[in-house]
Every structure is written in structure tokens, then in C-alpha cells.
């Protein structure tokens, strides 16, 4: 108590002997107790990390790996389709999941007069996954609209938003023609100008203006 307060700049000696720790060796900077304390905690930490990190990586892996390899599936001969209206087809979007892995798509032939953008695709294959929260939309031929049953999203003939909460047009799939058969490949997303984006996005991801940077494309998609 009577000892005058040391200035904070004056540092304690590195040597345990100078600090008056009982049983200190000459020239020792860390006591054995301290060393073993640190050692035991370090070993415990390594043991936890040895099982926790691989498990965490295992659980989070899908975020960083390409899960859906590019593959094309046959949806029928070219004569099944026209450029006037959409024809529904069922494709399997996730293999080996039975009915839950299948989805309906709407397909029509690309009409150069109507489809200025994405004219490189021979067919327009529209995904039925609503861009709001992913419910299945259906095409109503009479009104030429895609209508979502969940929250009232409405899309026009190109899949562009004409009403309700969706934030971007309906996704599409890459298409190609081989030996007179129409093949459907991977999904791609579009913004409201029907510009194509390299990674498909989740429903509810905005793709216009600055919004597109808040919903980044991921390696997994």
C-alpha cells in the first residue's frame, strides 16, 4: 500500500525471478505453471479444431461447390413447339429425388421479331419458379400471363413482371437443338431489361441497378 504507484510506462521485468514469483529459475521468462496452462489449452483447442473444422466445412460445403453439373435433357422433337404460345414440359431439375426433383417449364420457339435479347437461344424455356419466393407459376393462355398462386405475382409473355411482388422476370433455361430434338440445359436469371446474368440467382434476389451487388452470384449456382 505504501509503495508508490509505478508509472504505467515502467514495464514489469520479463524475468520471473525479478517479479518475485516463488520457485522461479534464473533467466526464466514463463513459469512452468503458465507454460503447462497454455500447453493444455492449446492441445484442447487443437483437438476441438480437429473435429469441428472438418465438420463445419462438411456442413457449409454446398455454399462453395458447384453442385449441379451442366447437363442437357431432351424435351421432345422440334415439331412439338411453336413461336405463338408456350408448351408445358416436365424436366428433372435435381436428379434422384423422385417427384420433388421435377419441375414444369414452358417452352416456345424464339421469335426474332419479338425476342431481341437472348436471340442466340433457339428456344425460350421459361422456369415456373416465381421470382418472388419460388412458388410454381402457371401460364394462362387466354391472358398470355404467368400467374403465381401464392402472393399474386403476374408476368407477361416474355416472363417480365407486370404485377405483384416479384423483383425480376422469370428465370429461363439454356436451350439447343440436336438432331431435331430440343434440349434444355442450365438455368439463367435475367434482370428487368432481360439481360442475362452468369450465375442463376435465388428467387427474391434483385438484379437491377445497384441491387445486383447486394445479391451476389455464388459459386454454387
Amino acid at each position, binding site marked *: 500500500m505504501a509503495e508508490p504507484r509505478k508509472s504505467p510506462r515502467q514495464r514489469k521485468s520479463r524475468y520471473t525471478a525479478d517479479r518475485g514469483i516463488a520457485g522461479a529459475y534464473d533467466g526464466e521468462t514463463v513459469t512452468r505453471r503458465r507454460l503447462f496452462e497454455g500447453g493444455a489449452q492449446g492441445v484442447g483447442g487443437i483437438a476441438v479444431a480437429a473435429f469441428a473444422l472438418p465438420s463445419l466445412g462438411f456442413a457449409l460445403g454446398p455454399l462453395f461447390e458447384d453442385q449441379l453439373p451442366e447437363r442437357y435433357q431432351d424435351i421432345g422433337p422440334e415439331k412439338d413447339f411453336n413461336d405463338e404460345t408456350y408448351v408445358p414440359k416436365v424436366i428433372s431439375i435435381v436428379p434422384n429425388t423422385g417427384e420433388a*426433383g421435377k419441375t414444369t417449364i414452358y417452352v416456345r420457339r424464339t421469335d426474332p421479331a419479338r425476342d431481341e435479347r437472348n436471340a442466340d437461344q433457339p428456344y425460350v424455356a421459361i422456369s415456373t419458379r416465381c421470382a418472388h419466393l419460388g412458388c410454381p407459376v402457371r401460364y394462362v393462355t387466354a391472358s398470355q400471363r404467368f400467374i403465381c398462386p401464392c402472393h399474386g405475382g403476374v408476368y407477361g409473355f416474355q416472363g417480365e413482371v407486370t404485377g405483384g411482388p416479384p423483383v425480376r422476370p422469370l428465370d429461363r433455361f439454356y436451350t439447343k437443338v440436336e438432331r431435331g430434338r430440343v434440349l434444355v440445359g442450365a438455368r439463367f436469371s435475367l434482370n428487368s431489361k432481360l439481360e442475362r446474368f452468369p450465375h442463376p440467382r*435465388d*428467387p427474391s434476389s434483385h438484379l437491377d441497378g445497384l441491387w445486383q451487388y*447486394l*445479391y451476389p452470384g455464388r459459386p454454387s449456382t
Partner: protein
Amino acid sequence: MKRPQPPLPRALQRRPAPPGDGAGPNGDQAAPTLKDQAVEVPVSVVGWLDERTGASPFLRGFLYRKVPKGTNWFYTLGSASMFAFLSQAVTGVFLAMYYEPDASRAYESAQRITNEIFLGELVRGMHRWGSTVMIVLVFLHMGRTFFFGAYKYPRELNWIIGVILLVLTLAMGFTGYLLPFDQRSFWATVVGVNINASGPVVGPYLADFLRGGPEFGAYTLSRFYALHMLLIPVLIAALIGAHLYLVAKLGTTAPPWLKAEKSKALAKEQV
């Protein structure tokens, strides 16, 4: 030293022998009857355990702790939530014995639980309705804590733990909803996961974690099953332990309409 007797119901307490009856000529006790021996069994079992665990001071402190004046039925909502959780845990474990978390068999196995397995309809119904009851109880418990001001110093940490428990309970509801794997649960989960995806920057990654990939696939169901029956329940059980420890440690609050009584000595001093 005399060991303190554990608190026993009256029927199990050893009665002192009536004076002058049964005592031998030398004053020693008569041989204990069969009934006396039978009564002694649970007492000695409890005593054996207590001698080795030292649990009785802790249990007595925990179970016979003082509660403030004015404690009423609203104070039972916390234990009601806990019993709802226990009921969910027990029925859930037994449902897991018949349920198959496989995209092509989940629906059939849930149907089989309801339609074919003995008492399956009851146990599944208890789990299904119990989940709703638990969420209602948790919210009522939260409301009680809020309106009675029981979240204030020194109980803020318990409020925080309670909020985490609320979020975990809702996560249980969300992950459990998919498991029957019918049209309703499938599309509700698709929408729920996409609501998670609508959060900027982290949302899409969170959705990927929940689905186990970019599309709702084969692993989504097993992922939800593992979260629903292993990860979240263990977290909830651990946090309930911490929550209860703090309740026992800090005690409960008196209802706000009860004013603290002034001590008579202090009142005299003020006059």
C-alpha cells in the same frame, strides 16, 4: 454428527416406537417388521445416492427456494414451456423410430405413422399440436416477463438467453414443418427458405446452407431432419439449463402491483 433427514412425505417417515411397547427387557428394539423394512428401502436408496453425489443441498435449495409474495399462476408459464419442450422431445424421439428422412419415402412413412402404427396418430398429433402449444406458451412466457418487468437488472442475461430460445423454438417449427413432406410442407418450406434468401448479401448463402445447395434437393430433407432432431434440440436443452440456473440463482421478481413493505423500524426512524 447427525445427518439431516431428507424431506419425506409423512407416510414414509419413521414413527417413533410407542413408549413401553415392543421394547425388550434390556431396553433394545424389537426386530423391525417387514413393513418397516419395505419403507426403509427407498430411503436408503436415496441416502446412498445422496451420500455419493451430495445432491440434496443443491436440490433442496433449488426445489424449496423462496419465491416472492404475490407469485401467481402467470409464473408457471416458464415451466409450462419447458414441459412442452419435454413432451416434444419424447414424442419426437419415438416418431423418429418410424420416420424415414428420404425424399421418396418420407411422405409414405409419415402416412404410415398416422394410419397404421399403434397409437401413431396420437403421438404424431401430440407432436404436431404440441409444437403450436409450445410456441404459444413461449410467447406468453415472454409477455409475462416483459409486462412484469422481470427482464431488468440483474436478469438481462436471462432475457437474452430467452430470446435465443425463442428463435431456436421458431427454428424448430420451421425445420419440423418440412418433415411430413406433403405439398403444403414442401411449398411452405420453399417459400420460407426463399424468404431467408431475400436478405441482402448473406441471405443467398443462408438459403444455400438450408437447402444444401442451390436447388431444393435430396439433401434438403435430411438436412432439415438433422437440424430438427439433433442440432437445435441439443442447443435448446443446454440453454434451458442455463436459463434455469439463472432463475434459481437470481430468484424471481414480485409482480409489479406489489409494493415493497417498509420495515417498521425504518418507518419509525423517518417519523
